[in-house]
């Protein structure tokens, strides 16, 4: 059976971006195929928002290239923009307008705006249509921004911490809608978040940004399969400089040791058992634990 090669929707090659003398992106490479829902994770200040803005042409990269839907990010065509939806991290809207006016105003720019869908979303998320934007809470603002981003049923959704200010109910509703939209595999999403449980619910892929580069990018299940915690126990104490080969971090306490390993193989387990005469147990990690291990500097 011939392999189906998915179209690359977001393609980033060697992207660099500096703020003055401070390099934020140091050569990012990322290829997101059609239908992927990619969770972008990274420490505070790691450059998640900068990467997203560079992808959308909101910031100019200093080097490398980025394309979205086949268009150069710095010069997105109207057609490409018509297929994009974006929710910024901090939402600013027309403070003096009522919410329904903001929606109408935004809709006027899109030839394919789905008014019925927007109304449904607004009702589902209890958006106060007659309230003025300046009276909305941060969470309500974010909800409005999400409605605006989804109103034209975009093929590509780029969301910069879209649910950070939402309450748990609204967050679940949003994730549900996101799953509905991306479930058929034709829509692609890239969203940054610190809430790994959300990411685990909806993401098909995970990208971890660290030190200005994509430190890790793969399918979520693959990541979970590869990154494990090893719990070692032996009769004698481990030496103080004990370290599991290829581990992200090793912690020694007498005759016990904990190690997070990015790539666990049967060969590695056999070697540990034989060399250290240790009982080695392999534990699964959730995404949050993986993220902590990958970014731990201990």
């Amino acid at each position, binding site marked *: 059976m011939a392999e189906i090669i998915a179209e690359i929707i977001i393609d980033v090659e060697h992207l660099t971006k500096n703020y003055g003398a401070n390099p934020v992106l140091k050569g990012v490479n990322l290829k997101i195929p059609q239908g992927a829902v990619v969770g972008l994770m990274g420490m505070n200040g790691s450059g998640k928002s900068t990467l997203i803005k560079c992808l959308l*042409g909101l910031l*100019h990269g200093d080097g490398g290239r980025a394309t979205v839907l086949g268009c150069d990010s710095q010069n*997105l065509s*109207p057609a490409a923009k018509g297929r994009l939806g974006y929710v910024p991290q901090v939402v600013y809207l027309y403070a*003096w307008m009522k919410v329904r006016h903001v929606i109408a105003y935004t809709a006027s*720019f899109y030839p394919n705006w789905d008014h019925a869908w927007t109304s449904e979303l607004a009702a589902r998320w209890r958006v106060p249509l007659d309230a003025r934007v300046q*009276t909305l809470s941060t969470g309500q603002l974010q909800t409005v921004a999400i409605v605006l981003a989804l109103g034209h049923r975009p093929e590509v959704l780029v969301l910069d911490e879209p649910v950070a200010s939402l309450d748990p109910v609204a967050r679940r509703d949003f994730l549900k809608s996101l799953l509905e939209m991306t479930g058929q595999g034709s829509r692609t999403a890239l969203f940054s978040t610190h809430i790994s449980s959300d990411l685990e619910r909806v993401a098909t892929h995970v990208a971890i940004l660290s030190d200005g580069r994509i430190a890790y990018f793969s399918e979520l299940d693959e990541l979970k399969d590869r990154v494990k915690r090893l719990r070692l126990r032996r009769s004698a104490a481990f030496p103080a400089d004990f370290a599991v080969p290829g581990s992200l971090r090793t912690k020694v306490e007498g005759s016990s040791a904990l190690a997070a390993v990015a790539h666990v193989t049967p060969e590695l387990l056999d070697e540990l058992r034989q060399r250290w005469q240790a009982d080695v147990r392999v534990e699964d990690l959730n995404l949050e634990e993986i993220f902590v291990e990958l970014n731990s500097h201990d």
Partner: protein
Amino acid sequence: MINRIGWIVVSYATRPLVLALTGLGILFLLLGMIPMPIRPNEWAIYPSAPQARLMVDLKATLDAVRKSGRQQEVDGIDLSRLWTDLAPRKIDPEGRPSIGPPDEAFYKILDEFPNLRSVRYSYFGEPTGLDRIVSLAQLETLSLDGFGFFDLARLRSLQNLRRLEIGLFEIQKSVNGVLQPLPKLEGLDALASLPKLDTLVLRTRSVVNDAVLTEVGSLPHLSMLVLDLADSPHTPLSTTEAGFDALARAPELQTLYVGGRFPEDYTQLAFLAKASAPRLWIFSSRHDSTKSIPFTFLMPCFWFAMAIGGQLASQFLGSGSRLIPGFASSHALVGVVLSAGVIVFGADRLMTIGVSGPVAIAASAAQVTSIIAIGAASALTRTFRPRGIQRLTWMIPVVFVCVLASFVFPAWDPLASALHSPIAAVAYALVACGATVLAVWTLAHRAEWFSDSSSLERRNPMRYEWLGMGGGSRWMFFTNRRERHIEAGLSTTPNLNWWQRVGRWRLGNPSLEILPLALVILVPIGAAALTMLAMARQSGASRPISLFPMLSFMPFMMLLGHVGATWRARLLVLPLEFLRPCSRQAMQRELAAAFALDLLPLAILFAILATLGFHLNTSINLPWRWVPLSFLYFLALGCSGILAVGALVVVVRRLWVSIVLLFVFVLANMLGGAGLVLFERGAPDLFPGFMPTALIFASFCLPILFGAIFCWVLWRRWLRIEIGRRV
């Protein structure tokens, strides 16, 4: 407490915006101290004679008129200059070239021009040719210069004469071997028979004495008297209160210009005139550059107050002002002390130019507090709509119409006097301070009110309503019109043309929040402006009319700043708007056009105000037929300058950088335009004949050119702007 205040002072001293504004204030202060390349009291600032439509003053002009057969159109002639151009050159016994007095034959030239209304005439001893001049019954303006005795009774036949200027040379000089007597005016009482004579200008020091003023006081139709003792040696004036007592009895006299080459001329004459004739408008006839109000007072205080107001607004906007113990009181204390310092500084500057203490303090306080109110108001524009003050909006045009009326119709003396009196100045200052207190008080409470605006209505509906956030009526009807447009029009018009798309971008701005802003800004600004009028009247530094552009400047700049700030705030929404389905280039072009359209009314307003101020300024006295041309010029100037200034605020992200650039822009215009004019005035001989005109033309075009260059540079920057960077 001391430690806390020290850190607050550090917060002022380390903020680039505050440093930039303070630096600009100091720079303007230093500029005011630079000696100008003009002598003090060199410029006459009393209303000049109406300009002739076609003036013959040179041989070249005369030849051109004769060649084209336009003698009928000539309505002005300068016999003095014309004779200098036409006279045969002689060599005097000492070997120097000289020009003799014109003979009777020269004055036959007057017969060529049947419609003369203005004549400048010089005589040398015997006033030859005068018979021909006094036969010009239609003559309206006569300017006399000359040596020696002259009997004014000979002018009795000039029944249409409106303006008479007399400048007699105060030196005894031998003319054709005959020693001329010192000048004296005789027959002045005969002028009483001239029914239209309303303006008399005396430029001779030695003829201004009590006897002459007494005779002037008897002229029944005289409404303006100018004592401009400019070209005279500095000899003591013999005038006493008696002379001005006589002037006070002049039935129609309203306006008196006094002064001369020396500042003490104004001081002495104005003192006597104010004591004897308080009902008269008394102004300086000469511009005293040492009393340059903009540099010594307005501009430094303006920038200092901006720095304080900006810092206060930014500090009070944060939640720290409500949550940190002692924060608000300490900041308020530092703000009050600094403001008081600026007020005292400004008042001191004013008193040095002759303004009395109460008016100086009132004017200074009004200036400083109104600027601080602007700083506070800038933080309140989106939410500050107390209804009671809204109604005061309608007072603004009323106040400005009154002020304007007092410019245009000085005959409305009671109104003008009331508007410009010291008591009114103090009252205006109180209004300004009150508005400031209200604005700052509201600002100080804003952090609490808006810390959780979503639940505000539930917690305190009355306060919510008072702030104008409930119901439908609190929004200005303009805004409602925009909302209706969004509801009715946008969703049903899928294919928009370019203008419609530009209009759609404009709909994203609440540009007509200008009215609530005007409440907080224009009331104190208007009050401040009126105190300036009182101040100007007291100091004699400027006639009120010359303050008109300056008075227009402040509210105008505030409106401009508001539009700029609105668009600057729009930058926050741009990351979302940028992803709407249109190309980056199209969006940038359409947004720039929308921005320009928002500024166009301001450019038109600027052109109207500037044209009005230009033509109302009787020192310039241009014919009214020049109005369309000057309007077009000011419109071009406004379009380029306003667009440049507005774009600076929007495109340059760091506010302090845009302010410094703004200063560079204004300074470049000042140095470029005014510098060229001064250069041309000071050294006309350095240039060939065509150059001065070219320079003047260039000096007028330079500001437009600078504006255009700034616009181009900012446009290039706008094309490269990173929309995703935070403002």
